[in-house]
């Protein structure tokens, strides 16, 4: 009896040791994996940030400096304050890129393009909400003929790659006379982002019980009031998520902007930043500083709404 119980307690000890050991191992594996992932994700951003404070000479030095030896604000100074001098074939040797201080010819376009990006992104966000919320509410809660077909058609447009749409888009924009106009971007980005907005909101609205819709209507709400008074406040996390998605998509979009814009009247940030490589030489330090400026608005938005993003994107996936 006692021998048996000793055996039993020995075994328990063994299991306890084993499980404690395996738990530690598991924790260690998770920790190391997360660390690797974190470095992988953050290293490019870290390099962008670090090199924006370095001179051109320091950037190209071997080995590279993760922490600037001589931190400088000259790149940012150039973006915000520098008077621009056009570089021509004759004057190309006046500034030595390797010595730093080389400013691309399109540098003056950076701030105006950021304003364009902002206008385009903001318009796309607002129009997304104006179109997407009523569309999603109708598809989720109103039975009408062709409802399923509508939902699937809208979702199907999402699987068409943007590049396939460039030519038709271009013809439409050209015929509308909107080439080199921010409206061309607003219209096309809307076409690209609306399906996603509708998809996320439809699945969220569908997860809310039909009886809630009925209760509101019996309580005296019209369809529109039901949407604004009951469904909108409940869908806030999803709405924030789609706002962010629409904003970031528009802010980062390159391909369509490259096709439809020609001058700073409509060029957006990605186009202008890309144009910095097309001069006689490339100033990495300046491009990196521009990159830092470009990611500030999205980063602020993401930090501000971070708690909504995950819950908004997964909401409606599982009925709660």
């Amino acid at each position, binding site marked *: 009896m006692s021998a048996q119980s000793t055996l039993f307690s020995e075994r328990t000890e063994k299991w306890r040791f084993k499980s404690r050991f395996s738990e530690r191992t598991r924790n260690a594996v998770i920790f190391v994996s997360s660390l690797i992932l974190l470095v992988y994700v953050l290293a490019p951003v870290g390099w962008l940030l670090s090199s924006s404070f370095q001179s051109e000479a320091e950037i190209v030095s071997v080995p590279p400096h993760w922490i600037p030896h001589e931190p400088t604000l000259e790149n940012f100074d150039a973006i915000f304050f520098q008077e621009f001098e056009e570089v021509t074939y004759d004057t190309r040797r006046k500034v030595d890129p390797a010595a730093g201080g080389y400013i691309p010819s399109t540098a003056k376009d950076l701030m105006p393009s950021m304003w364009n990006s902002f206008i385009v992104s903001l318009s796309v966000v607002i129009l997304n909400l104006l179109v997407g919320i009523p569309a999603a509410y109708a598809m989720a809660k109103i039975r009408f003929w062709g409802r399923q077909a509508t939902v699937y058609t809208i979702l199907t447009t999402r699987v068409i790659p943007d590049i396939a749409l460039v030519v038709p888009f271009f013809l439409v924009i050209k015929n509308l006379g909107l080439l080199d106009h921010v409206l061309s971007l607003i219209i096309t980005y809307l076409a690209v982002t609306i399906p996603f907005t509708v998809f996320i909101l439809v699945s969220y609205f569908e997860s809310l019980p039909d009886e809630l819709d009925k*209760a509101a209507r019996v309580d005296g709400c019209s369809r529109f009031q039901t949407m604004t008074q009951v469904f909108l406040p409940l869908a806030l996390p999803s709405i924030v998520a789609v706002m962010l998605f629409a904003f970031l998509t528009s802010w980062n979009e390159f391909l369509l902007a490259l096709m439809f814009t020609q001058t700073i009247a409509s060029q957006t940030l990605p186009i202008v930043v890309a144009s910095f490589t097309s001069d006689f030489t490339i100033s990495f330090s300046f491009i990196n500083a521009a990159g830092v400026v470009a990611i500030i608005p999205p980063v602020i938005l993401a930090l501000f709404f971070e708690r909504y993003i995950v819950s908004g994107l997964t909401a409606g996936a599982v009925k709660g």
Partner: protein
Amino acid sequence: MARILFDNVTKYYGSVKAVDRLNLEIVDKEFLVLLGPSGCGKTTTLNMIAGLEELSEGDIYFDEQVVNFMPPHIRDVAMVFQSYALYPHKNVFDNIAFGLKMRKYDGAEIDKRVRDAAARLHIEHLLDRLPSQLSGGQRQRVALGRAMVRQPSVFLMDEPLSNLDAALRISMRAEIKQLHHSMETTFVYVTHDQAEALTLADRIVVMQEGVVQQIGTPDEIYEKPENLFVASFLGNPPINLLEGELAAEGGKMVFQKGGFRMHFPEDMTIKLQAHTGRAVTLGIRPEDVNEQGAAMPGSAVSGTVDTVLPMGSEQYLSMTIEGTEVFFRLGKEHKHKDGDSVSLEVNRNRLHVFDKETRRSLLWG
């Protein structure tokens, strides 16, 4: 104030007929219960009164006015839902006040009405809470309050008690009945629970597969079911059904199934005479037997008890008659055990006879 009339109303969902040519008049201030199994069209009917479902055919009248295309927010109806459908982002006060706010009542009036309703439902102390912080019974009360404050002319309830536990359900039944008395408005109540229907209703509409089976007072529905469906849907345990045939025997009508015979009393004989030889289903409610005195052949069920099922206040005996399992309900004063031989006198005035083919009652059809 609010008489509701269904005139040949049909509702299709695609090719499925949810409600089939419904003709029904709901009298003002009546408590009408729509009863039936799930999918029988009772909730669809309720939604059509509320204006939440459009009609495919026919007309609905409120008093003299056709309301087919009147949207729900214009109709003077309030509704309580099975899931309560409280607004999760609003506290109890705002939930109850919402309907009044949408109808642009002034603030003082809203406040007064909400507090009155809350006091009547004993939820004054919960007004600041969110629905997620309430128990099921409390949510149910809030849902009732939300419908009450509007003082609607029609009060619609869609299985409002099915999410509550058994004890709470009984006490809420009593409260709903009181509410109906004090509010003096038309109540239309949907349920699949026969006990709820029998306790609450002035009249019951029994539905199956979109078709009205019978309309009547609870007593009529229970005592004189017009067809086999109504008979078997009401009653717990359900009515015992024996398939056999009608025969004439010395001027009296008899039900025969193998060796089992049941003589019908005088008044039933008159009704059944024309159906001699017909294949029928005999219905005996479990409670319509007793064990007093010597049972006469032709008016009793005799045999051995397969199982005794004690139920606390009473007991059920399960027996087999000609291969069909039947249940009878007896008081606790009779002591029985499995395998006992018993003979139970049937209250023959309460027998039911249904045509086997049409399933309609030959007595009350």
